[in-house]
Protein backbone atom coordinates (compact mmCIF):
# COMPACT_ATOMS: atom_id res chain seq x y z
CA UNK A 1 0.00 0.00 0.00
CA UNK A 2 1.41 3.37 -1.04
CA UNK A 3 0.46 6.27 1.24
CA UNK A 4 0.88 9.82 0.01
CA UNK A 5 0.37 12.51 2.67
CA UNK A 6 -0.10 16.16 1.70
CA UNK A 7 0.01 18.24 4.85
CA UNK A 8 0.90 21.66 6.17
CA UNK A 9 2.01 20.16 9.49
CA UNK A 10 5.43 18.53 9.49
CA UNK A 11 4.89 16.32 12.54
CA UNK A 12 1.35 15.40 11.54
CA UNK A 13 2.53 14.49 8.06
CA UNK A 14 5.00 11.86 9.21
CA UNK A 15 2.90 10.43 11.98
CA UNK A 16 -0.31 10.22 9.93
CA UNK A 17 1.29 8.14 7.22
CA UNK A 18 2.34 5.59 9.85
CA UNK A 19 -0.97 5.83 11.67
CA UNK A 20 -3.01 5.23 8.50
CA UNK A 21 -0.99 2.15 7.57
CA UNK A 22 -1.22 0.72 11.09
CA UNK A 23 -4.97 1.24 11.41
CA UNK A 24 -5.62 -0.33 8.00
CA UNK A 25 -3.38 -3.29 8.85
CA UNK A 26 -5.08 -3.62 12.24
CA UNK A 27 -8.55 -3.92 10.72
CA UNK A 28 -7.38 -6.10 7.85
CA UNK A 29 -7.98 -3.60 5.04
CA UNK A 30 -4.40 -2.92 4.00
CA UNK A 31 -4.38 -5.67 1.39
CA UNK A 32 -7.47 -4.15 -0.31
CA UNK A 33 -5.82 -0.76 -0.89
CA UNK A 34 -3.51 -0.02 -3.79
CA UNK A 35 -2.83 3.62 -2.99
CA UNK A 36 -4.03 6.25 -0.51
CA UNK A 37 -3.81 10.04 -0.62
CA UNK A 38 -4.35 11.94 2.60
CA UNK A 39 -4.78 15.71 2.50
CA UNK A 40 -4.46 17.13 6.03
CA UNK A 41 -5.31 20.77 6.73
CA UNK A 42 -5.84 21.01 10.50
CA UNK A 43 -5.91 24.83 10.44
CA UNK A 44 -9.15 24.91 8.37
CA UNK A 45 -9.88 22.10 9.52
CA UNK A 46 -10.25 19.96 6.38
CA UNK A 47 -9.28 16.34 5.90
CA UNK A 48 -9.53 14.52 2.56
CA UNK A 49 -8.77 10.81 2.58
CA UNK A 50 -8.90 9.13 -0.82
CA UNK A 51 -8.17 5.42 -1.35
CA UNK A 52 -7.81 3.50 -4.57
CA UNK A 53 -8.76 -0.16 -4.07
CA UNK A 54 -6.98 -3.03 -5.78
CA UNK A 55 -10.29 -4.31 -7.16
CA UNK A 56 -13.78 -2.87 -7.49
CA UNK A 57 -15.87 -4.07 -4.53
CA UNK A 58 -18.18 -6.86 -5.66
CA UNK A 59 -20.38 -9.49 -4.09
CA UNK A 60 -18.57 -12.68 -3.10
CA UNK A 61 -20.08 -16.16 -3.04
CA UNK A 62 -18.64 -19.28 -1.42
CA UNK A 63 -17.51 -20.38 -4.90
CA UNK A 64 -15.28 -17.25 -5.14
CA UNK A 65 -13.45 -17.80 -1.87
CA UNK A 66 -13.37 -21.62 -1.51
CA UNK A 67 -12.90 -24.75 -3.62
CA UNK A 68 -16.13 -26.74 -3.51
CA UNK A 69 -16.61 -30.30 -4.76
CA UNK A 70 -19.50 -32.73 -4.51
CA UNK A 71 -18.82 -36.04 -2.75
CA UNK A 72 -21.86 -38.31 -3.15
CA UNK A 73 -24.73 -36.61 -1.40
CA UNK A 74 -22.41 -34.24 0.52
CA UNK A 75 -20.22 -31.28 -0.41
CA UNK A 76 -16.62 -30.69 0.62
CA UNK A 77 -15.08 -27.19 0.89
CA UNK A 78 -11.51 -25.96 1.15
CA UNK A 79 -11.42 -22.28 2.09
CA UNK A 80 -8.89 -20.41 -0.05
CA UNK A 81 -9.36 -16.91 1.36
CA UNK A 82 -9.16 -16.94 5.14
CA UNK A 83 -10.75 -13.50 5.53
CA UNK A 84 -14.12 -15.00 4.58
CA UNK A 85 -13.90 -18.07 6.85
CA UNK A 86 -16.17 -16.69 9.63
CA UNK A 87 -18.73 -15.55 7.09
CA UNK A 88 -18.69 -18.93 5.26
CA UNK A 89 -19.32 -20.79 8.50
CA UNK A 90 -22.10 -18.40 9.45
CA UNK A 91 -23.87 -18.83 6.11
CA UNK A 92 -23.46 -22.63 6.10
CA UNK A 93 -24.87 -22.91 9.62
CA UNK A 94 -27.74 -20.64 8.69
CA UNK A 95 -28.70 -22.59 5.57
CA UNK A 96 -27.90 -26.22 6.49
CA UNK A 97 -27.84 -26.17 10.30
CA UNK A 98 -24.89 -26.69 12.64
CA UNK A 99 -25.30 -30.49 12.70
CA UNK A 100 -24.78 -30.70 8.94
CA UNK A 101 -21.50 -28.75 8.96
CA UNK A 102 -18.45 -30.74 9.98
CA UNK A 103 -15.28 -28.64 10.24
CA UNK A 104 -12.36 -31.04 9.97
CA UNK A 105 -9.50 -28.53 9.96
CA UNK A 106 -9.23 -24.77 9.92
CA UNK A 107 -9.92 -24.63 6.19
CA UNK A 108 -11.65 -27.97 5.40
CA UNK A 109 -15.34 -28.53 5.90
CA UNK A 110 -17.90 -31.18 4.96
CA UNK A 111 -21.53 -30.19 4.49
CA UNK A 112 -23.78 -33.22 4.89
CA UNK A 113 -26.69 -33.45 2.47
CA UNK A 114 -25.77 -30.31 0.46
CA UNK A 115 -25.25 -30.05 -3.25
CA UNK A 116 -22.15 -28.43 -4.74
CA UNK A 117 -24.18 -25.79 -6.59
CA UNK A 118 -26.16 -24.78 -3.47
CA UNK A 119 -22.99 -24.30 -1.45
CA UNK A 120 -21.22 -22.39 -4.25
CA UNK A 121 -24.10 -19.96 -4.61
CA UNK A 122 -24.15 -18.85 -0.96
CA UNK A 123 -23.41 -15.12 -0.60
CA UNK A 124 -20.62 -14.39 1.92
CA UNK A 125 -20.06 -10.66 1.34
CA UNK A 126 -22.09 -8.09 -0.53
CA UNK A 127 -20.44 -5.20 -2.42
CA UNK A 128 -22.32 -2.70 -0.28
CA UNK A 129 -20.92 -4.30 2.84
CA UNK A 130 -17.35 -4.07 1.50
CA UNK A 131 -17.77 -0.39 0.67
CA UNK A 132 -19.27 0.34 4.09
CA UNK A 133 -16.40 -1.50 5.77
CA UNK A 134 -13.88 0.60 3.85
CA UNK A 135 -15.67 3.86 4.65
CA UNK A 136 -15.77 2.83 8.33
CA UNK A 137 -12.04 2.14 8.19
CA UNK A 138 -11.34 5.58 6.70
CA UNK A 139 -13.50 7.28 9.36
CA UNK A 140 -11.51 5.48 12.02
CA UNK A 141 -8.26 6.94 10.74
CA UNK A 142 -9.62 10.51 10.76
CA UNK A 143 -9.43 12.73 13.85
CA UNK A 144 -12.39 12.09 16.16
CA UNK A 145 -13.91 15.56 16.15
CA UNK A 146 -14.08 15.95 12.36
CA UNK A 147 -17.68 14.81 12.11
CA UNK A 148 -19.13 16.53 9.05
CA UNK A 149 -18.25 14.07 6.29
CA UNK A 150 -19.11 13.62 2.61
CA UNK A 151 -18.20 10.52 0.61
CA UNK A 152 -17.56 10.10 -3.13
CA UNK A 153 -17.48 6.58 -4.61
CA UNK A 154 -16.58 5.82 -8.21
CA UNK A 155 -15.38 2.39 -9.28
CA UNK A 156 -12.26 1.59 -7.30
CA UNK A 157 -11.88 5.02 -5.70
CA UNK A 158 -13.46 6.04 -2.38
CA UNK A 159 -12.90 9.59 -1.11
CA UNK A 160 -14.07 11.03 2.20
CA UNK A 161 -14.06 14.81 2.71
CA UNK A 162 -14.44 15.85 6.34
CA UNK A 163 -14.55 19.05 8.32
CA UNK A 164 -15.66 20.06 11.79
CA UNK A 165 -18.46 22.55 11.23
CA UNK A 166 -19.88 23.84 7.91
CA UNK A 167 -19.01 21.91 4.76
CA UNK A 168 -18.25 24.70 2.32
CA UNK A 169 -18.41 24.34 -1.50
CA UNK A 170 -14.66 24.88 -1.94
CA UNK A 171 -14.01 21.92 0.40
CA UNK A 172 -16.15 19.64 -1.73
CA UNK A 173 -14.46 20.95 -4.89
CA UNK A 174 -11.04 20.19 -3.43
CA UNK A 175 -12.25 16.75 -2.38
CA UNK A 176 -13.54 16.09 -5.90
CA UNK A 177 -10.18 17.15 -7.38
CA UNK A 178 -8.35 14.63 -5.17
CA UNK A 179 -10.99 12.02 -6.02
CA UNK A 180 -10.50 12.55 -9.76
CA UNK A 181 -6.72 12.61 -9.43
CA UNK A 182 -6.92 9.13 -7.90
CA UNK A 183 -8.45 7.91 -11.13
CA UNK A 184 -12.16 8.16 -10.47
Amino acid at each position, binding site marked *: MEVNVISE*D*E*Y*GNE*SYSELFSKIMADINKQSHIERATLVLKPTVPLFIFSVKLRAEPSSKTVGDVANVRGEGSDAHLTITDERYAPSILEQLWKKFGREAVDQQTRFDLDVIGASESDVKALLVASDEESINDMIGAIW*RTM*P*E*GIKNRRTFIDGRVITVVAT*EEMMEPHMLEEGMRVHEAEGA
Partner: protein
Amino acid sequence: MFEVMMYDGGIYRSEELFEMIEDVGGAVLQKNRSSQMLSVTMAVPEGDRKAIEALCKDIGGEVKSVPLAGTEIAVVGPTLGRHHMPHPICDIAENLRRRGSITVVMGLARGRGKKTAQINLEERKIIGEYDAAVFMLGNFKNCVEAKTELFREIDTPLVLVCGPVPEGIDDAYDAIVSGVGRKMERMRTTPERAKLDEIADAVEKILLEKRRILEEDPLFVHPAEVKQLLEDYEPVNMCLRPGPIVMHLDGLRVKIGYEEHRRHVEDMKVYGRRLGDICAISPSKINDSSMLIRIKTRSEVEHDDRKAGR
Protein backbone atom coordinates in the same frame (compact mmCIF):
# COMPACT_ATOMS: atom_id res chain seq x y z
CA MET B 1 8.88 11.83 58.90
CA PHE B 2 7.46 8.92 56.94
CA GLU B 3 9.26 7.31 54.02
CA VAL B 4 7.42 5.46 51.28
CA MET B 5 8.83 2.28 49.73
CA MET B 6 7.66 -0.92 48.09
CA TYR B 7 8.26 -4.57 48.96
CA ASP B 8 8.28 -6.83 45.93
CA GLY B 9 8.56 -10.54 46.54
CA GLY B 10 6.79 -13.71 47.54
CA ILE B 11 3.86 -14.19 49.88
CA TYR B 12 5.98 -16.47 52.12
CA ARG B 13 6.59 -14.93 55.59
CA SER B 14 4.90 -11.72 54.52
CA GLU B 15 2.97 -11.74 57.81
CA GLU B 16 6.27 -10.86 59.53
CA LEU B 17 6.54 -7.78 57.32
CA PHE B 18 2.99 -6.65 58.12
CA GLU B 19 3.65 -7.14 61.83
CA MET B 20 6.82 -5.10 61.65
CA ILE B 21 5.08 -2.27 59.75
CA GLU B 22 2.49 -2.20 62.53
CA ASP B 23 5.12 -2.37 65.28
CA VAL B 24 7.06 0.62 63.96
CA GLY B 25 3.85 2.61 63.51
CA GLY B 26 3.89 2.53 59.72
CA ALA B 27 1.02 2.05 57.29
CA VAL B 28 0.33 -0.17 54.31
CA LEU B 29 -0.66 2.13 51.45
CA GLN B 30 -1.36 -0.51 48.85
CA LYS B 31 -1.21 -4.29 48.71
CA ASN B 32 -1.35 -6.30 45.46
CA ARG B 33 -1.28 -10.05 45.50
CA SER B 34 -0.94 -12.06 42.32
CA SER B 35 -0.79 -15.82 42.91
CA GLN B 36 2.27 -16.35 45.15
CA MET B 37 3.72 -12.89 44.46
CA LEU B 38 3.08 -9.84 46.57
CA SER B 39 3.85 -6.16 46.30
CA VAL B 40 3.27 -3.88 49.25
CA THR B 41 3.60 -0.11 49.16
CA MET B 42 4.17 1.16 52.68
CA ALA B 43 4.90 4.32 54.60
CA VAL B 44 7.27 3.77 57.54
CA PRO B 45 9.08 6.14 59.92
CA GLU B 46 12.41 7.27 58.50
CA GLY B 47 14.40 5.73 61.38
CA ASP B 48 12.98 2.25 60.83
CA ARG B 49 13.70 2.05 57.12
CA LYS B 50 16.86 -0.01 57.55
CA ALA B 51 15.15 -2.59 59.77
CA ILE B 52 12.31 -2.97 57.25
CA GLU B 53 14.78 -3.32 54.39
CA ALA B 54 16.69 -6.01 56.28
CA LEU B 55 13.50 -7.96 56.95
CA CYS B 56 12.39 -7.70 53.29
CA LYS B 57 15.75 -9.11 52.23
CA ASP B 58 15.54 -11.83 54.86
CA ILE B 59 12.15 -13.06 53.65
CA GLY B 60 13.38 -13.22 50.06
CA GLY B 61 11.94 -10.03 48.58
CA GLU B 62 13.42 -6.75 47.49
CA VAL B 63 12.76 -3.14 48.32
CA LYS B 64 12.07 -0.81 45.45
CA SER B 65 11.99 2.92 45.38
CA VAL B 66 8.55 4.31 44.47
CA PRO B 67 8.98 8.04 44.01
CA LEU B 68 5.32 8.61 43.16
CA ALA B 69 3.85 6.57 46.01
CA GLY B 70 1.26 8.39 48.05
CA THR B 71 0.05 10.40 45.06
CA GLU B 72 -3.03 10.18 42.88
CA ILE B 73 -2.63 11.33 39.29
CA ALA B 74 -5.23 11.89 36.58
CA VAL B 75 -4.34 11.05 33.00
CA VAL B 76 -6.78 12.99 30.85
CA GLY B 77 -7.64 12.57 27.19
CA PRO B 78 -9.99 14.62 25.02
CA THR B 79 -12.55 11.76 25.01
CA LEU B 80 -12.85 8.10 25.94
CA GLY B 81 -13.18 7.16 22.24
CA ARG B 82 -10.99 4.63 20.48
CA HIS B 83 -9.05 7.45 18.82
CA HIS B 84 -7.47 8.21 22.20
CA MET B 85 -7.81 4.99 24.20
CA PRO B 86 -6.22 2.71 25.18
CA HIS B 87 -2.99 3.96 23.64
CA PRO B 88 -1.10 6.01 24.60
CA ILE B 89 -3.17 7.18 27.60
CA CYS B 90 -3.31 3.80 29.32
CA ASP B 91 0.40 3.24 28.63
CA ILE B 92 1.22 6.50 30.41
CA ALA B 93 -1.03 5.58 33.35
CA GLU B 94 0.55 2.13 33.59
CA ASN B 95 4.05 3.58 33.72
CA LEU B 96 3.02 6.00 36.47
CA ARG B 97 1.57 3.09 38.45
CA ARG B 98 4.91 1.29 38.18
CA ARG B 99 6.42 4.21 40.06
CA GLY B 100 3.91 3.82 42.87
CA SER B 101 1.22 6.30 41.96
CA ILE B 102 -2.51 5.63 41.94
CA THR B 103 -3.79 6.70 38.53
CA VAL B 104 -7.16 7.59 37.11
CA VAL B 105 -7.85 7.70 33.38
CA MET B 106 -10.39 10.30 32.34
CA GLY B 107 -11.97 11.48 29.11
CA LEU B 108 -13.75 14.79 28.71
CA ALA B 109 -17.39 14.83 27.66
CA ARG B 110 -16.87 17.32 24.81
CA GLY B 111 -13.12 17.37 24.27
CA ARG B 112 -13.09 16.26 20.65
CA GLY B 113 -12.60 18.51 17.65
CA LYS B 114 -10.63 21.69 17.28
CA LYS B 115 -13.12 24.56 17.31
CA THR B 116 -15.79 22.73 19.28
CA ALA B 117 -13.63 21.18 22.04
CA GLN B 118 -14.59 22.33 25.51
CA ILE B 119 -14.26 21.53 29.17
CA ASN B 120 -16.83 22.42 31.82
CA LEU B 121 -16.33 23.72 35.33
CA GLU B 122 -17.21 20.37 36.90
CA GLU B 123 -14.54 18.58 34.87
CA ARG B 124 -11.98 21.24 35.82
CA LYS B 125 -12.80 20.79 39.51
CA ILE B 126 -12.62 17.00 39.28
CA ILE B 127 -9.16 17.16 37.67
CA GLY B 128 -8.15 19.71 40.30
CA GLU B 129 -8.77 17.11 43.05
CA TYR B 130 -5.71 15.11 41.97
CA ASP B 131 -2.09 15.71 42.92
CA ALA B 132 -1.16 16.22 39.28
CA ALA B 133 -2.69 15.76 35.85
CA VAL B 134 -1.22 14.51 32.59
CA PHE B 135 -3.08 15.95 29.60
CA MET B 136 -2.73 14.03 26.36
CA LEU B 137 -3.28 15.73 22.99
CA GLY B 138 -2.60 14.75 19.39
CA ASN B 139 -0.46 15.13 16.30
CA PHE B 140 -1.25 18.58 14.92
CA LYS B 141 0.54 21.63 16.29
CA ASN B 142 -2.30 23.94 15.36
CA CYS B 143 -4.87 21.77 17.15
CA VAL B 144 -2.77 21.49 20.30
CA GLU B 145 -2.45 25.29 20.43
CA ALA B 146 -6.19 25.73 19.79
CA LYS B 147 -7.06 23.35 22.63
CA THR B 148 -5.07 25.23 25.28
CA GLU B 149 -8.30 26.39 26.94
CA LEU B 150 -9.03 22.80 27.92
CA PHE B 151 -6.24 22.80 30.49
CA ARG B 152 -5.35 26.46 31.10
CA GLU B 153 -7.27 26.97 34.35
CA ILE B 154 -6.87 23.60 35.97
CA ASP B 155 -5.88 24.01 39.60
CA THR B 156 -3.25 21.30 39.83
CA PRO B 157 0.26 20.84 38.38
CA LEU B 158 -0.08 19.73 34.78
CA VAL B 159 2.12 17.88 32.30
CA LEU B 160 1.15 18.32 28.65
CA VAL B 161 1.93 15.37 26.38
CA CYS B 162 1.55 15.84 22.63
CA GLY B 163 3.17 15.22 19.27
CA PRO B 164 4.66 18.51 18.06
CA VAL B 165 5.98 21.29 20.29
CA PRO B 166 3.29 24.03 20.53
CA GLU B 167 4.23 27.70 20.57
CA GLY B 168 3.01 30.56 22.75
CA ILE B 169 1.24 28.49 25.41
CA ASP B 170 4.13 28.01 27.87
CA ASP B 171 2.09 29.55 30.69
CA ALA B 172 -0.64 26.91 30.42
CA TYR B 173 1.35 23.92 31.70
CA ASP B 174 4.06 23.09 34.23
CA ALA B 175 5.94 20.64 32.02
CA ILE B 176 5.69 19.37 28.48
CA VAL B 177 6.74 16.14 26.78
CA SER B 178 6.50 16.17 23.00
CA GLY B 179 6.90 13.36 20.48
CA VAL B 180 3.93 11.29 21.65
CA GLY B 181 0.86 11.65 19.44
CA ARG B 182 -2.06 9.42 18.59
CA LYS B 183 -1.05 5.74 18.76
CA MET B 184 -2.68 2.59 17.51
CA GLU B 185 -0.61 0.10 19.45
CA ARG B 186 1.13 -0.34 22.76
CA MET B 187 4.23 1.77 23.37
CA ARG B 188 6.74 -1.04 23.63
CA THR B 189 9.76 -0.09 21.53
CA THR B 190 12.86 1.27 23.25
CA PRO B 191 12.35 4.91 22.16
CA GLU B 192 8.67 4.71 23.17
CA ARG B 193 9.54 3.28 26.60
CA ALA B 194 12.05 6.12 26.97
CA LYS B 195 9.25 8.60 26.20
CA LEU B 196 7.05 7.02 28.89
CA ASP B 197 9.92 7.37 31.36
CA GLU B 198 10.35 10.98 30.29
CA ILE B 199 6.67 11.62 31.10
CA ALA B 200 6.99 9.93 34.50
CA ASP B 201 10.15 11.95 35.20
CA ALA B 202 8.29 15.16 34.34
CA VAL B 203 5.46 14.22 36.72
CA GLU B 204 8.00 13.34 39.41
CA LYS B 205 9.72 16.68 38.98
CA ILE B 206 6.56 18.79 39.34
CA LEU B 207 5.45 16.74 42.35
CA LEU B 208 8.87 17.21 43.93
CA GLU B 209 8.34 20.93 43.60
CA LYS B 210 4.87 20.59 45.17
CA ARG B 211 6.42 18.58 48.03
CA ARG B 212 9.11 21.24 48.49
CA ILE B 213 6.43 23.94 48.79
CA LEU B 214 4.55 21.78 51.31
CA GLU B 215 7.72 21.32 53.37
CA GLU B 216 8.10 25.08 53.76
CA ASP B 217 4.94 25.00 55.84
CA PRO B 218 4.50 21.32 56.80
CA LEU B 219 1.18 19.58 57.21
CA PHE B 220 -0.11 19.27 60.78
CA VAL B 221 -0.05 15.46 60.46
CA HIS B 222 1.23 13.18 57.70
CA PRO B 223 -1.56 11.71 55.52
CA ALA B 224 -0.36 8.20 56.47
CA GLU B 225 -1.23 8.92 60.11
CA VAL B 226 -4.77 9.94 59.16
CA LYS B 227 -4.97 6.84 56.99
CA GLN B 228 -4.14 4.63 59.99
CA LEU B 229 -6.87 6.31 61.95
CA LEU B 230 -9.44 5.86 59.20
CA GLU B 231 -8.62 2.21 58.64
CA ASP B 232 -10.19 1.38 61.99
CA TYR B 233 -13.46 3.06 61.03
CA GLU B 234 -15.84 0.23 60.14
CA PRO B 235 -17.48 1.69 56.97
CA VAL B 236 -13.98 2.18 55.52
CA ASN B 237 -12.89 -1.23 56.66
CA MET B 238 -15.95 -2.82 55.07
CA CYS B 239 -15.74 -0.80 51.85
CA LEU B 240 -15.46 -3.10 48.86
CA ARG B 241 -14.28 -0.44 46.41
CA PRO B 242 -10.65 -0.82 45.25
CA GLY B 243 -8.36 1.31 47.40
CA PRO B 244 -10.95 2.73 49.82
CA ILE B 245 -8.36 5.22 51.07
CA VAL B 246 -6.09 6.93 48.54
CA MET B 247 -3.31 9.17 49.81
CA HIS B 248 -2.60 12.56 48.31
CA LEU B 249 0.40 14.75 48.99
CA ASP B 250 -1.70 17.02 51.20
CA GLY B 251 -4.46 14.70 52.34
CA LEU B 252 -6.56 11.73 51.35
CA ARG B 253 -9.50 10.58 49.28
CA VAL B 254 -11.80 8.32 51.31
CA LYS B 255 -14.37 6.32 49.41
CA ILE B 256 -17.30 6.56 51.80
CA GLY B 257 -20.33 8.84 51.52
CA TYR B 258 -19.72 12.43 52.64
CA GLU B 259 -23.18 13.27 53.98
CA GLU B 260 -23.47 10.02 55.92
CA HIS B 261 -20.00 9.90 57.50
CA ARG B 262 -18.74 13.48 57.64
CA ARG B 263 -19.64 14.10 61.28
CA HIS B 264 -18.04 10.87 62.49
CA VAL B 265 -14.83 11.53 60.53
CA GLU B 266 -14.66 15.12 61.81
CA ASP B 267 -14.88 13.88 65.42
CA MET B 268 -11.97 11.45 65.10
CA LYS B 269 -8.97 12.41 67.22
CA VAL B 270 -5.33 12.63 66.18
CA TYR B 271 -2.69 14.02 68.58
CA GLY B 272 -5.57 15.09 70.80
CA ARG B 273 -7.12 17.22 68.05
CA ARG B 274 -10.40 16.75 66.19
CA LEU B 275 -9.88 15.83 62.54
CA GLY B 276 -12.49 18.45 61.67
CA ASP B 277 -10.25 21.16 63.22
CA ILE B 278 -7.03 20.20 61.49
CA CYS B 279 -8.45 19.15 58.11
CA ALA B 280 -10.79 20.59 55.52
CA ILE B 281 -13.26 17.83 54.70
CA SER B 282 -15.36 18.17 51.56
CA PRO B 283 -17.37 15.97 49.20
CA SER B 284 -15.61 14.83 46.04
CA LYS B 285 -16.83 16.49 42.86
CA ILE B 286 -17.04 13.08 41.20
CA ASN B 287 -20.04 12.05 43.32
CA ASP B 288 -21.23 11.92 46.88
CA SER B 289 -19.77 8.49 47.53
CA SER B 290 -16.28 9.79 48.32
CA MET B 291 -14.88 12.58 50.42
CA LEU B 292 -11.70 14.59 50.26
CA ILE B 293 -9.68 15.32 53.36
CA ARG B 294 -7.16 18.12 52.95
CA ILE B 295 -4.85 18.36 55.93
CA LYS B 296 -4.18 21.91 57.06
CA THR B 297 -0.63 23.15 57.45
CA ARG B 298 0.78 23.94 60.89
CA SER B 299 0.46 27.68 60.32
CA GLU B 300 -3.16 27.28 59.18
CA VAL B 301 -3.99 25.31 62.35
CA GLU B 302 -2.21 27.95 64.52
CA HIS B 303 -4.14 30.71 62.76
CA ASP B 304 -7.44 28.87 63.28
CA ASP B 305 -6.55 28.31 66.95
CA ARG B 306 -5.80 31.99 67.48
CA LYS B 307 -9.06 32.94 65.81
CA ALA B 308 -10.98 30.54 68.01
CA GLY B 309 -9.13 31.76 71.12
CA ARG B 310 -7.63 28.33 71.87
